[in-house]
C-alpha cells in the first residue's frame, strides 16, 4: 500500500558537481596544500590521494552574528552545585559567548582547519596541473592514430570471406533440428504404427500401404527443410581498436660509484619516480630502461638498479654509450618518444667528461625528446657539470639542475618541466 521507492541505483555522485565546484573555487589553497604535502611525504606514495587542509577562514560562509560581549543570560542543564545568587569565576575563554554566539564552545575550542580527502586523480591533476613535457604538444599534434583489428565475436552479417564455417553449420543444424522435430515425432509414431500393422495385418495390407505413403510424405517434408539457409550464416567479427602510438621509453641513468651514497641514491630515485609518474599520465605505454654505471655500465632491472651495492671509480661515458646502443637497437625508427634522466654526483674521471659531452650532443640528444641531468651534490659543481654547462643552449631538449637536498626535488622537477610557452 505504501509507496516504497528504491533509489539506491539512481544516479550516484549527485554532489560530484558541487564537489568539483568546491575544488575549483579553492584551487589556489588546495594547490598550496598539495605542494606542502609533497614536501612532507615520500614520493613513493604519490599514487594515493591526499588529505588537504585549508584554513577555515578562507572558506567561511559569513553571516551576521553576535560577537562576544554584551549581556548573555543562558540556561544550562545538570546543576550540581549552584544556588541563586552564586558568583562564578568566568571561564578562561569561550565562556563569554556561552554558546549563544554559535561557534565558541565551552572549552574555547576554535574552528579547525577544514580538512578533506582529495582523490588520487584530483591530487595528481593538481600536482601536474601546470606542468607539461617540453615538445609534448608537437609530438601529440603529430600523433597518427594507428588501428589494429581485433576479434570481437560473431555477427550475422558480413562479407563471404569472413564466414565462420563451424558456427554457420552449427546454427544450420540447430535450425534443422528445431524445424524438423514435429515431423520426427510423428515419424516415430508412424513407424511404430507400421510395425504394429504389419504384425496384425501382414506386410501387404491396405493399412500398411497407407501408413507407408504417409511415412514417405513426412520424409519428403523433412528433406525439404533446407540444409543451410542464409539465416544460418555466421561471420567472424573484427573491430578496429586504436593502437596507442604515444609510447615512450624512459632511460634512467644513475651513477652507482662509491661516492654515491644511499641518500643520494634515494634522492635520484625520487626524481626518476616523479618523471615516471608524469610520463605515465601522458603516454599510454612506457618502457623504462635502467642503466647503472661505475667504471662500466650495465642495464639492470629496477630492483638491482636501486638496491645492489657497487663501488669503484666513475666513467660516465660508458653509460651514455650503452644508452646510445640501446636506442639504436630497440627504439630507433621514430616510433618512440625517448626521455633520458641522468643522476650523478658529478664526480667523473677527468678525461671522460668531454667524451660524455660529445656523445650526448651528437649521438643522444638528436633522438631525445628531452634529456635531464641532475647533479646531486651539496658542494661545488663537479667537472661533469662544467662540461655539461657548455651544452646548454645548443639543444632545446637538454636541461640540467643541481639538487642539494631531498627537499629540492619538487621545485627542481617543476623547473625542469615547466610549461614552455613557445
Amino acid at each position: 500500500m505504501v509507496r516504497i521507492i528504491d533509489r539506491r541505483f539512481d544516479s550516484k555522485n549527485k554532489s560530484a558537481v558541487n564537489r568539483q565546484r568546491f575544488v575549483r573555487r579553492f584551487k589556489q589553497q588546495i594547490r598550496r596544500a598539495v605542494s606542502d604535502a609533497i614536501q612532507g611525504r615520500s614520493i613513493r606514495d604519490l599514487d594515493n590521494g591526499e588529505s588537504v587542509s585549508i584554513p577555515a577562514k578562507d572558506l567561511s560562509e559569513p553571516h551576521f552574528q553576535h560577537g562576544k560581549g554584551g549581556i548573555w543570560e543562558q540556561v544550562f542543564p545538570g546543576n550540581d552545585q549552584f544556588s541563586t545568587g552564586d558568583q562564578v569565576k568566568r571561564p578562561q575563554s569561550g565562556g563569554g559567548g556561552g554558546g549563544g554566539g554559535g561557534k565558541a564552545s565551552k572549552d574555547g575550542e576554535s574552528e579547525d582547519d577544514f580538512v578533506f580527502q582529495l582523490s588520487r586523480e584530483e591530487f595528481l591533476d593538481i600536482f601536474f596541473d601546470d606542468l607539461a613535457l617540453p615538445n609534448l604538444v608537437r609530438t601529440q599534434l603529430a600523433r597518427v592514430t594507428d588501428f589494429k583489428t581485433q576479434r570481437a565475436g560473431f555477427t550475422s552479417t558480413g562479407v563471404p570471406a569472413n564466414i565462420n564455417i563451424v558456427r554457420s553449420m552449427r546454427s544450420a543444424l540447430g535450425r534443422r533440428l528445431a524445424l524438423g522435430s514435429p515431423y520426427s515425432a510423428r515419424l516415430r509414431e508412424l513407424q511404430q504404427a507400421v510395425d504394429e500393422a504389419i504384425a496384425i495385418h501382414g506386410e501387404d495390407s491396405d493399412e500398411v500401404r497407407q501408413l507407408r505413403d504417409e511415412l514417405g510424405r513426412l520424409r519428403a517434408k523433412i528433406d525439404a527443410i533446407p540444409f543451410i539457409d542464409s539465416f544460418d550464416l555466421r561471420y567472424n567479427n573484427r573491430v578496429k581498436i586504436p593502437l596507442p602510438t604515444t609510447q615512450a621509453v624512459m632511460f634512467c641513468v644513475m651513477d652507482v660509484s662509491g661516492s654515491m651514497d644511499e641518500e643520494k641514491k634515494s634522492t635520484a630515485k625520487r626524481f626518476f619516480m616523479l618523471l615516471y609518474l608524469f610520463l605515465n599520465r601522458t603516454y599510454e605505454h612506457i618502457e623504462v630502461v635502467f642503466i647503472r654505471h661505475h667504471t662500466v655500465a650495465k642495464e639492470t632491472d629496477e630492483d638491482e638498479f636501486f638496491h645492489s651495492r657497487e663501488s669503484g671509480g666513475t666513467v660516465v661515458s660508458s653509460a651514455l654509450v650503452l644508452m646510445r646502443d640501446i636506442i639504436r637497437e630497440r627504439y630507433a625508427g621514430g616510433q618512440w618518444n625517448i626521455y633520458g634522466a641522468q643522476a650523478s654526483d658529478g664526480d667523473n674521471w677527468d678525461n671522460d667528461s668531454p667524451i660524455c659531452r660529445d656523445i650526448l650532443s651528437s649521438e643522444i640528444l638528436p633522438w631525445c625528446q628531452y634529456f635531464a641531468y641532475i647533479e646531486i651534490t651539496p658542494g661545488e659543481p663537479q667537472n661533469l657539470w662544467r662540461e655539461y654547462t657548455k651544452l646548454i643552449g645548443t639543444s632545446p631538449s637538454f636541461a640540467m639542475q643541481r639538487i642539494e637536498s631531498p627537499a629540492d626535488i619538487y621545485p627542481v622537477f617543476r623547473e625542469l618541466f615547466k610549461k614552455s610557452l613557445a
Partner: protein
Amino acid sequence: MKRDLKPQPLPSGSEWSFESIDRYHAEIARVAAAYKLDTYPVQIEIITAEQMMDAYASVGMPVNYHHWSFGKHFLSTEKGYRRGQMGLAYEIVINSNPCIAYLMEENTLPMQGLVIAHAAYGHNSFFKGNYLFRTWTNADAIIDYLIFARNYIARCEERYGEEDVELLLDSCHALMSLGVDRYRRPPKLSLAKEKMRQQEREEYLQTQVNDLWRTLPVHEARGGAAQESRFPDEPEENLLYFIEKNAPLLDPWQREIVRIVRKIAQYFFPQRQTQVMNEGWATYWHYTLLNTLYDEGLLSDSFMLEFLQSHTNVVYQPPYNVRWYNGINPYALGFAMWTDIRRICENPTDEDREWFPEIAGSDWQDTFDFAMRNFKDESFIAQYLSPKVMRDFRMFAILDDEHEQSLKVSAIHDDSGFRRVREILSEHYNLGSREPNIQVWNVDLRGDRSLTLRHQAWRKRPLGDTTTEVMKHIARLWGFTVRLESVDEQGTVELINETRLEKRKTRD
C-alpha cells in the same frame, strides 16, 4: 478496528526487506491512525549512505541548485562519516506532499521501523499540523519549485557564466538569515504561477527600478532638508526582499536568483523555529507508537532492545560540565516536555493544577493536538515548560555581563526560579534575539545612492567578526556604498561599518 484475533508478530532480525518494511509501515500507520495523527501520504525511499550524504549536503532537499558550499558540506560530512566520528542522521524527511522519508540501506530492520515511526508519522504530522508550516510552506509545491530553481540557475550559468552566478549566490547566502519575512504572511508558491509570473516580473521589476532613479534629476531643489523622507518609509526587515525589489544595478536574472534564495530561506524558516517541538514531537511519537506495537505483542524483545538503545542515545542530555556538552539537546527537551504534558493531563499533581489549570486533567490527545498546532519553540516553552521538567534537567541560568567580574547564577530550579528559568530558555529560542536584528533603514536617493542598515543592539551585544565580510556581500548586491549603523538601547546611533563600492555597470 478490525484485527485478526491472534496478532501476527512482525518480522524480527536485523535484515530488512521490502516486504518487512511494508508490514512495519502498515502496522505503524494503523497505530498512528488510532492515535488520530493526521499526516500527508507517505512515500518511503531507500537510499545509500552516499545518497544520504548528498541529501544532507544540499540542506536535506532531494533537488537543489549547484553551489560550492554544498560540496564543502558534503566533504565534511563524508569525512566525519568515513572516520566513524559521526553516524549519519538516521533519517531525512521532506516536508512535501506526499511526505518523503529516506531510509538508509545500511540501517537494520529495527532502525527502519524507528525511522518510519519517527519521520513518516512524527514529523509528517507536525508538518501538516503546525501553524508555522501551514502558513509559511506549501508542501504541494516545494519540490516543483526547487526543480524550477535548479533549472533556472543552471540556465543562468550557461548564459552568464558559472562564476558570476556563483558570486551572486555567495552574496545571497550570506544574507539568507535576513531574507525572511518574520511577520508578514507569504503568498503560496505554485510552479505554474511561478513560471508564468517570472517573465512578467523580470520586465516589470526592471522598469520599476529604473523609474525610481529616473525621477531623480527632477528634484533639484534641496529645501526642507530637516523633513527629508526616508526610503523605504518603514524599516524593512527582509534584506533580500529589499534588494530584489530595489537594488538599482541588478539584472532581471540576478533579481530572480535573489528571489529563489529568499524563497528557500523562507521555506526553512519554520524548521529553525520549531526544533525542540518538532524533534520532541517526532521522538515522542516513535516512542509511543513502537511501545504500543510492543504491547500488542507484535514486536520482539530484540527489536525493543535495539530500539531503546537508539532512543536513549537520542534523548540523552549531557550536563553542562562535561566536555561534550553542546547546549540543550532539542530531542531531550522536546521529548521530556511532550511526555510531561501527557503526564499533566493524565496524572496531575497539585503543582500541575496550580501551574497548568487549563490542561491538568484534560484529554491528553486534544491538548497535544492544540499544542502542536499553535506554538513554536519560544511560545511552546513559555507555555508548557513545567517545574518538573526543569527539576529533572536541573536547569540553572547564568547571567554573563561583560562589565562584571564574574558570572552570576541568576535563577535555578527552585520555586523562586522556575518562572525566570523558563523565561530565559524561551528567550533563547527566540530567533529575533538569537540573531542580530538588522534592518534596512534608508537609501540616499538624492545623493550617492548609498544604503544604510541599522542594527538594533540588544542587551549590548556587539556584532561578530564576520560583519565586514557580510557587508562586502551586501555592497556587491546593492552596487553602491553600504553603511551599517548600530543603535543601542538609549537610542544612540553609531556608524560601525562602511563599505564603499563604486560599481560601474558595463552594458553589453
